[in-house]
């Protein structure tokens, strides 16, 4: 048998004859690779997934006209800046006179859009043919049984029939929202405020704010700091927890794998001694052991990558109702990392063995 053939023969036979030993090594590499893949895949997609959740927080940017109302050009500037990545609801406010000489804040907006934006409102439907969304405190005062009432602005008056009563736990509870057309007919004013929901990561929201500020010189663009601040805090903290935890898990299991690998190489000191006694050089033995580990590591890491992608996918499906897709860019680092580790783990103990005479090992000393 020629040298190359013998080498290949030894390489494959070693794994084949001791299948269980090869299998434990393979499993330990696969476990490390799958945890590394799963942790990093989740980590990279987390900002995306969590930011999606923040859509339900409603408007995170409020734009107000400095003087007067928005013109159509300004509204379409805002809409095109958001361009499908969020929602824009123009609103107008005025103070009207309610029944019994009371004052009430009324708002004019597209009611369906407003209700969609404020998804956290708890809404009690009243009369489906009604014309207004009435805050719970306003409803308690004016329309305890869902009856209609009249409000006035200047000399004009309008009959309000509640379509639904909502609870928000904010100033909105004292307000009445009318459809824009009714509002303009009553007050002759147009929207001067736009509630904007920008979807995306904290950085993307900040970019949108910067863009809107320069595109709308006649308006004041303000992020709702309470919301954006909370989003930044949550996303940042969660990402660092996932990263730290995954790193720790990977490092620990990696050490575990190295221990298993090193142990099994040390157990093979007899193989080592026989080879040496038969005239193999230190280099040849080292290459043989290294090649064997590389082969195992490659197979283990490939299996681990697939399993890891599966775990990440499952976490996305089970928890975020949206799959976390595999990141092909991770494949190479995972493969190379596993091979490198296996190399270190299998060749380091050989150095220890080199110091011992083969005869000593074979005699069982």
């Amino acid at each position: 048998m020629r040298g190359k053939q013998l080498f290949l023969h030894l390489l494959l036979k070693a794994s084949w004859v001791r299948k269980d030993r090869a299998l434990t090594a393979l499993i330990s590499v696969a476990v490390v690779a799958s945890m590394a893949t799963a942790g990093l895949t989740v980590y990279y997609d987390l900002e995306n997934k969590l930011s999606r959740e923040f859509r339900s927080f409603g408007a995170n940017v409020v734009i107000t006209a400095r003087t007067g109302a928005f013109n159509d050009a300004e509204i379409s500037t805002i809409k095109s800046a958001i361009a499908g990545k969020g929602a824009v609801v123009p609103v107008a406010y005025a103070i009207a006179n309610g029944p019994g000489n009371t004052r009430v804040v009324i708002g004019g907006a597209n009611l369906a859009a407003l209700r969609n934006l404020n998804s956290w409102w708890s809404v009690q439907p009243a009369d489906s043919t009604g014309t207004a969304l009435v805050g719970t405190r306003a409803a308690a005062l004016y329309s305890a049984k869902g009856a209609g009432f009249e409000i006035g602005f200047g000399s004009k008056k309008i009959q309000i029939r509640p379509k639904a009563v909502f609870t928000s736990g904010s100033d909105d509870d004292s307000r009445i929202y009318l459809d824009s057309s009714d509002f303009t007919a009553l007050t002759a004013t147009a929207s001067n405020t736009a509630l904007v929901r920008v979807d995306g990561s904290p950085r993307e929201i900040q970019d949108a704010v910067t863009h809107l500020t320069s595109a709308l010189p006649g308006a004041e663009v303000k992020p709702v700091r309470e919301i954006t601040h909370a989003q930044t805090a949550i996303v940042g903290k969660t990402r660092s927890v996932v990263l730290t935890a995954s790193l720790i898990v990977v490092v620990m299991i990696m050490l575990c794998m190295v221990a298993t690998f090193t142990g099994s190489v040390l157990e093979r000191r007899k193989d080592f001694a026989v080879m040496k006694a038969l005239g193999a050089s230190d280099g040849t033995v080292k290459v043989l052991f290294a090649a064997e580990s590389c082969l195992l590591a490659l197979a283990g890491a490939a299996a681990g990558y697939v399993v890891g992608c599966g775990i990440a996918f499952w976490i996305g499906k089970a928890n975020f109702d949206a799959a976390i897709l595999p990141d092909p860019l991770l494949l190479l680092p995972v493969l190379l990392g596993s091979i490198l580790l296996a190399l270190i783990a299998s060749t380091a103990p050989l150095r220890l063995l080199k110091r011992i005479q083969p005869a000593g090992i074979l005699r069982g000393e």
Partner: protein
Amino acid sequence: MFFRLLFESFRRQKRRKSVALLAIVLGMTVATAMLAVANDVGDKVNEDLRRNGGNILLTPMDDTLDVDIGGVNLKPLSESRFIAESDLPKIKGIFWGHNIKGFVPYLSDLQQLRVKNRVIDAELIGTYFAQTFRYGKEQFTTGARSVNGWWKVDGEWPQDYASWPQGSAPEVLAGRTLARQAGLAVGDEIELHGKTLRISGILNTGGAEDNAIVAPLHIVQQILGKPGEVQKVVVSALTKPEDAFGRRDPDRMTPADRDRWYCSPYANSISFQISEALPNVHAEQIRQVEQTQGKVLSRISGMMLLLTVAALFAAALAVSAAMAATILERRSEVGLMKSLGASNSTVASLFLTEAGCLAIVGGLAGFFFGAVLAHRIGLTVFGSPIDVQPVVLALIILAALIITFAGSAGAVRKAMRFDPAVVLRGEA
């Protein structure tokens, strides 16, 4: 004989044993740390959120409506109802008082300010910055500084004066936009109803406060002539995300359900307890914060839980593989024992006892290192330690035993299947 074999096995095979032990310790460290982090991450993020704004709004029982546009209160003070400031410490006395992380009262009115011989209209807002209370034996500090995490001050935060200071002008904050428009800077003085206030910092909130003067509550109460009164209070409470049970109406529950509802930290039940403690106060969850954050929090906890399951599985596999590897190498030992007449059960019990000893020692050490790690993760990510529940120790030891047994059992069975003669000749 059995114990001697056991003892000698540990004494003579130190390297092999230390590999197995190391694997168990590492695996159990991962398990402990991940369990602790997953268990605590929801609470930690929640606590972080509670430094970023309140989630329950207290308003006086009122038969008139708020008149409020763009965050500016336009209702004349004469028409307003109030909450007594002296009642506020009672918020800490409710059943879930421990979950109340802070509260911030507000009293505000539109006022005319005299700035450098000019008169401008601006809202005057009174609040706590870092007011200290005593409730029972507990000392408690609360205010905008701890609850409104997004308020940034350029300069110094004012102090919370108990009464009007003698000899010097009280310090207040000027909103960023107001300061820019009126040319106000730190150290300038403004005049209000003939009283002088000194600006100690410029406040940047991104909200209505940017156009206002924000001053210590007791100073504003004196200026507005409303001693001991506030208009609204924002409470920051640690709550449990609302589920179907939390949404139910307590008035329509059976007594047992009602007790369970009352003793769960839902925003609704905390609001209910606050309105019990403070008569004439209406407490309502701020739905935008409470409803949406709860959802995000449960997503985060869920994700950490799933990651933990994956990590536990990985740790178990890694430990099992390490155990199997060390035992597989000991076939000749099994062969020798069997050829000297040991029964399969004796051999198995020897190996399993060894594994059990390793599992207990490894589990203990792993729990200890895991607790240290969780503590460190908490400190680095959240600035407060994550503690491990002692009950986890029992779980970890149990898990270590199961995993090492599972890893050893297969390998021992396999080693016993071979004919001792074949194993001893080295042909297996």
